[in-house]
């Protein structure tokens, strides 16, 4: 009972952190989504030089630790004259990193689409760009929802490492509160529960999104 009272007492301050975490996640996920479309399309349909650059980008961001990327952006870039706040650095790191992963999911989704779809578009006089925009992407984006929702959940949880550069999100608030009260386990268990609730809400959202965009023939096969 005492524990519940403690949790309630720290909730207002944690609430601030929750809002920051959600804003950070939202910005990173939006950036990642736009980036992923550009990277995947560039890699698959772009001229060789673009395609190679996209591939290198993906390899770099998948092949190096997220924390290293965050530190490079926050501590490293200022020496090149690029100064970002801890919050902006975190959004950039999570967005740039997640974009690389989602690009690969999207590439997989596009490759699962029958070649005849593109051929039919071109055959009626569409440019490649129109065919990608109107035929390929609307189908691929439906297939990519399940793996993408995974990545959004990862991103939400990964924002917790933003406290390492001093961004004011849920985990950093928790750390301050825990140290102040000398109640580490009590505080972090509560934080874990809050993350869990946020993830469950996201899961509900994605289930709804999948249902809303459902089209006969695009059901995810069990």
């Amino acid at each position, binding site marked *: 009972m005492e524990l519940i009272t403690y949790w309630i007492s720290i909730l207002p301050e944690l609430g601030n952190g929750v809002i920051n975490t959600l804003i950070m996640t939202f910005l990173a996920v939006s950036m990642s989504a736009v980036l992923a479309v550009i990277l995947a399309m560039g890699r698959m349909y772009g001229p060789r030089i673009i395609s190679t650059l996209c591939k290198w980008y993906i390899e770099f961001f998948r092949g190096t630790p997220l924390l290293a990327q965050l530190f490079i952006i926050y501590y490293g870039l200022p020496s090149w004259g690029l100064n970002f706040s801890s919050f902006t650095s975190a959004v950039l790191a999570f967005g740039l990193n997640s974009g690389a992963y989602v690009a690969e999911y999207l590439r997989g989704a596009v490759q699962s689409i029958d070649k005849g779809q593109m051929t039919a578009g071109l055959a*009626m006089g569409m440019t490649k760009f129109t065919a990608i925009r109107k*035929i390929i992407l609307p189908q691929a984006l439906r297939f990519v929802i399940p793996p993408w929702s995974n990545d959004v959940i990862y991103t939400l949880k990964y924002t917790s490492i933003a406290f390492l550069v001093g961004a004011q999100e849920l985990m950093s608030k928790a750390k301050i509160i825990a140290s102040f009260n000398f109640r580490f386990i009590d505080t972090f268990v509560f934080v874990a529960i809050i993350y869990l609730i946020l993830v469950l809400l996201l899961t509900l959202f994605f289930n709804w999104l999948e249902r809303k965009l459902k089209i006969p*023939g695009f059901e995810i096969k069990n």
Partner: protein
Amino acid sequence: MEERKEILRVEDLHKSYGTNKVLQGISLNIKQGQTKVIIGPSGTGKSTLLTCVNYLNPPDKGRIWLEGEEIIYSEREINKIRQKKGFVFQQFNLFNHLTALGNVMVGLTEVLKKKKKEAREKAMYELERVGMADCAEQYPAELSGGQQQRVGIARALAMDPLLIMFDEPTSALDPELMGEVLDNMTKLALEGMTLLVVTHEMGFARAVADDIIFMENGRIVEEGPPEKLIMNPEKKRTIEFLQKITQLYGED
């Protein structure tokens, strides 16, 4: 009969994949309102010929004229040329995320840049022509193969093409579904649409074709009106092929 306008002329078309010479000098022409049917064994380059004519598969060598104007291949020009040639696929290739109506509309709005309302009216008209107006709001996955192919025909018709090319339009269909597709093709031919059809359906070829082209190993072996090519072929290979196909599909 009055001299009709030439729609498509192909001269000395060549196409190879590696060392495999798929087309070895194909020449043909088709006049307005004509129906030409291409027959021949599998792997003979019939489908390749159609995709080469549309530059979906650019030919290695050869010249193509559309309405008397030679096609000079370029990224920009080719889209305009493809608009004028309808294409109906063996596997239908309907856009899976669009309804039947959406499939017919998308070329009108995205390629011909027509207004939504106008595109919808035109698309409904074309769906009615193939007897698919009742299924306008259904998705490809909800339609039978025959229904999908009829939508495929409506989609080609909507662009008001100079000619429609059919690549084995009934080969992926159950026998009982072939009729509805062939009936629609026959109707188009009678209405004066120009058709270039690759098919094994000899019944259709005999009844509808002005000319039948027998192709083998990337070459045209023999060409002529059905009475001559089916009843009285000159070349030994044509006779052999016709015998084989009659055994397979029966006399009709």
